[in-house]
């Protein structure tokens, strides 16, 4: 018995210029905020962009972008609906706002299913909002997606970086490309993260300050794009892609 889905995944992604998995060993470091903002910023610069929320246990991008009332069209697969100019895909289309108590094996299976049936079409960028840690979703992206790139997010905190160090080490071991490391929620100047990242021979992209107004922009794309946070994402990430 052969699972036929595995063989079609890279064909479904074949017309995508660059695939970027926004990832971290740690939760709550800003992966979803950065993934959403990065996707919007690239789209505003005229690129065709897809955004895929792969944090099935804790999907967040639909809250950040206030996406409601959409559902993929069925047509030789499923077509991600447009939201704020992005082709947007998330488990919430199917789970609505119910809890999804999925084990790793279910997450892996659902990921394979979505990759096998989603028709992204031509895109310049596909941004993937990853769950925290180095579990099924991360291992599946490494295993299945040819040419995937990781954008790694950390905070200045020692506990956050400790887990990010492990992710970087894993990706380096496996020769998976790292776009760079972003230090999010900076509250003061400290070279600690930059030094640590450089010691691991990974590209350090820069820091994003803690933005006290960010929470107020939750669910309001226009406001979000006007924040200092969004400006930093544009400066240190979007412009470098």
């Amino acid at each position, binding site marked *: *018995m*052969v*699972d*036929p*889905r*595995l*063989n*079609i995944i890279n*064909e*479904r992604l074949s017309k995508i210029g660059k695939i970027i998995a926004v990832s971290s060993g740690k939760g709550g470091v800003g992966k979803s905020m950065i993934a959403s903002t990065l996707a919007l910023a690239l789209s505003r610069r005229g690129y065709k962009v897809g955004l895929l929320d792969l944090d099935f246990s804790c999907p967040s991008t639909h809250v950040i972008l206030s996406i409601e009332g959409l559902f*993929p069209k*069925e*047509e*030789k*697969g*499923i077509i991600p609906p447009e939201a704020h100019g992005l082709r947007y895909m998330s*488990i919430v*289309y*199917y*789970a609505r706002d*119910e*809890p*999804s*108590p*999925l*084990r790793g094996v*279910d*997450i892996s*299976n*659902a990921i394979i*299913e*979505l990759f*096998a*049936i989603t*028709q992204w079409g031509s895109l310049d960028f596909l941004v993937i909002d990853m769950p925290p840690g180095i579990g099924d979703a991360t291992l599946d992206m490494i295993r299945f997606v040819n040419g995937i790139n990781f954008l790694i997010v950390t905070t200045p905190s020692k506990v956050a970086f400790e887990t990010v160090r492990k992710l970087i080490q894993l990706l380096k071991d496996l020769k998976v490309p790292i776009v760079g490391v972003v230090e999010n929620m900076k509250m003061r100047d400290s070279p600690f993260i930059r030094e640590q990242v450089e010691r691991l021979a990974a590209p350090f992209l820069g820091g994003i300050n803690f933005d006290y107004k960010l929470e107020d922009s939750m669910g309001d794309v226009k406001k979000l794009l006007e924040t200092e946070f969004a400006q930093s994402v544009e400066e240190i990430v979007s412009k470098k892609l």
Partner: protein
Amino acid sequence: MHEWALAEAVISTTLKIAEEKELKEVIELKIKIGELQQIDQEIFEFALSQLRSPMLKNAKFSLETVKAELKCRVCNHKWKFSTKNMDHDVSEFIHFVPEIAHTYLKCPKCGSPDFEILTGRGVWLDSIKGAK
């Protein structure tokens, strides 16, 4: 009609295997369809036939549906999947992503969503008969 995407996966995998095995022609394709995913078999067969490449021009497609059985990880109760009394939207969600069953179904004995899908999940390429 997302059946088409799955049919395409089946054909593409068949061609890959046929190439590896250096087949000249594929004679029969056995496909197992898990009940949980509620594939529209007519559409699926239509898609398969539309996707016939020269290598598959005379291939017979044998489809078999596999009943879906679920097993609770908490109390070990086993039960059969049924769309009877199921909300139409929910059954459609499971059609697209079978794992979504964990969001809406519960063990009928203990109420847990922590169950295993023993059989009847997904679409499988069971075997290929070919000529060299």
